[in-house]
């Protein structure tokens, strides 16, 4: 398997700063992008793949798990207990948004849509609160990753379970944030 950490000249570790990583991509692009590269010794699509893998904490953790502890990711992922309450809230609110959007899609005239405005505004507020909640959780997980990063070099083997747990949490929370953002866009469209 390609070691994307190595490809991007980073050591294998849980935490990488997003802005620093992006600056690095920009520097490497100025050198190796096919439009400007003096030589073709470095394949830009590989750098591109490495950045994609590393800049998202979720895929970065997955890659780290795959490299350091091969085989751990084969088991079915479950929603960690830590975020199961959040999942219930999310499922409920998203369901009501789905029902609302379906109802709104049946309304054909601007007046009928306008009649649903207060319900829509209410849902919008609810979703925004939910997104804030998810964002909070997301930040907390990122802090956790930073903590793990601090002890990583000393005790890799001991970090395995915690790493797997955090990977699952951030996968779910990240996915839910995307879904809620998508719902907000759909609500805001007309």
């Amino acid at each position, binding site marked *: 398997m390609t070691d994307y950490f190595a490809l991007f000249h980073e050591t294998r570790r849980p935490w990488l700063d997003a802005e620093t990583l*992006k*600056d690095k*991509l*920009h520097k490497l*692009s*100025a050198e190796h*992008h*096919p*439009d*400007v590269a003096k030589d073709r010794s470095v394949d*830009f*699509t590989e750098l*591109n*793949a490495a*950045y*994609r893998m590393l800049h998202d904490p979720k895929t970065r953790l997955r890659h780290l798990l795959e490299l350091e502890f091969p085989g751990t990711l084969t088991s079915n992922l479950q929603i960690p207990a830590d975020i199961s309450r959040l999942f219930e809230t999310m499922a409920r609110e998203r369901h009501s948004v789905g029902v609302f959007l379906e109802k709104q899609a049946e*309304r*054909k*005239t*601007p*007046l*009928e*849509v*306008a*009649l649903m*405005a*207060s319900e*829509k*505004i*209410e849902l919008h*507020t609810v979703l925004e609160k939910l997104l804030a909640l998810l964002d909070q959780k997301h930040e907390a997980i990122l802090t956790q990753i930073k903590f793990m990063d601090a002890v990583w070099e000393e005790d890799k083997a001991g970090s395995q379970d915690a790493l797997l747990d955090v990977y699952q949490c951030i996968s779910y929370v990240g996915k839910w944030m995307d879904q809620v*953002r*998508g719902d*907000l*866009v759909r609500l*805001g*469209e*007309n």
Partner: protein
Amino acid sequence: MSDIVGIDLGTTNSLIGIMDAGFPILIADADGARLTPSVVHFPAASEPLVGNAANRMRAVDPANTVYSIKRFMGRRIGEESDDAGYQLAGSKGTPARVLVRREEYSPEQISALILKKLKADAERMLERSISRAVITVPAYFNDAQRNATKLAGELAGFAVERIVNEPTAAALAYGLDKLGEKSKIAVYDFGGGTFDISILELNTGVFHVISTNGNTRLGGDDIDNALIAHMISLAGPLDDSQKAAALARLREAAIDAKHRLSSQSETVINLPFFDGEKSLSFNLTRADLERIARPIIERTRAHCLRSLADAKLSPADLNQVILVGGQTRMPLVQEFVRTIFRREPNISQNPDEAVALGATIQAGILGGTVQNMVLLDVTPLSLGIETFGGLMNVIIPRNSTIPIKAGEMFTNAMPGQRAMLIHVLQGEREMARDNWALGRFELDFEPAPKGHARVGVQFEIDANGILHVLARDTKTGIEKKVEIESAVDVSDEAVEMMISESIEHAFDDVSERMFTEAKLKATEMLPAVRKALGLASDKLGDEDRSAIALLVTEVEVAMESGEAQRLKRANAALDEGTQHLAALLVERAMEEARKRKSGNA
């Protein structure tokens, strides 16, 4: 190394530029004009005319004058409304072709004529021959449309060095003198036929596109068409015998009026005998035009929201919103951008020229005359293949930085299976059939037990946003380039369905169906109006209330009459007449939400 030119091949106008001593300059034609109308006229007995000369023939000889050809690039008949003044050839589902003077032309050929004219103008001014070009396309163009544009360039005698996205090109022009800065910008590009929104990060000469969204069938042309429909509603139905000529005159007048109303608040449209005996003369205010244009401009909102969501940014995170495309001259468009992005839009760029200047800068980057600049662009649409159950399996997600490669392994599902058909798609919908079919290819397997024959397929989207597919047998190691049968050239199920649908509908009783639809709308509308009046009638004036009551009566009477046209008109009038009421309702809901919020706090 020979020069590379930059070309903006626009729906309405096209431009060409070249780098001169480190700066992009645009090249004027023999008459001194930098803007070449993307119009081609075919005279009876001489070579085609392109540009201003052709544009002058639009109202005189509409049947032999082709405009806005860009919207047919990479498209099939039936996908686009064929309300052009010129004739289209071919049956539904076949690649779009234009029929002029009994000759068929592909959109690529027409575009090539425009490109050739630009090439000749550039060669005349530079006094040397030009053979390499960078050509721009709307960011939201799919693979077929990009390939068509590339082909047009080749037909015109260019080696097409790069297909570059229009909003990205505009960003290059904007950022040329800001290379030291680090900022986040959005480019709102509303042109004649297409709309794009792109969000970029600028960082010491690197132009990094974060997300893009758009609609390749939404542009200023739609506003022209809506205005023409309004003019026809005032003038009465057109005489069928010379409809094309009358429409061409209406279009000319509509465009003129639209342009004037960007700087003045009122104008006169005056068309004596534009349709046989019929004349039209009326005052059009900016408010009238805005009422007509608003629903069209409103359609750009969803794309802006999506691109922000994809970039995971809020409007406050942006440093600038750059306006390009001629349609952004309209004050209502600027006002709209102001409300969506909650900031004053940046109008420092010439909306007609920024894209061509950017294409020229990209040409300079490729040619080596521009240093310290590099563009990281993205693919606008997710690329995937059809899997079991007709679902789309995404292989390269939208907004991935290009060039990009992604691998996928395929294996035989049955012992001895020799081949497998792969269906390649572009789009964001879950069901394969709802996405754009790029085409299909066949993978060959060596004879082997089930699951043992393995072929790895590499999908590569190059820096032009164009797909290349490579298949590699893992056992034999044999690699081969896969030719995708273009969906545009091949009739597949979707096309057959489109055709059978159209036949089905042909046998329908059109007027009966129209009445049923209109009646359905009316039965939904009337209770909604009653409910809305109950909620907000205290905020309406007496005049408004009685006006709405009259409109309601007309709908009720029309429903009894059984006349489809009358009911449709009555519905539309009620829709229009209750706009104010709808706005009041939304205001009331927002007011209540604000009260609740402050009550909670």
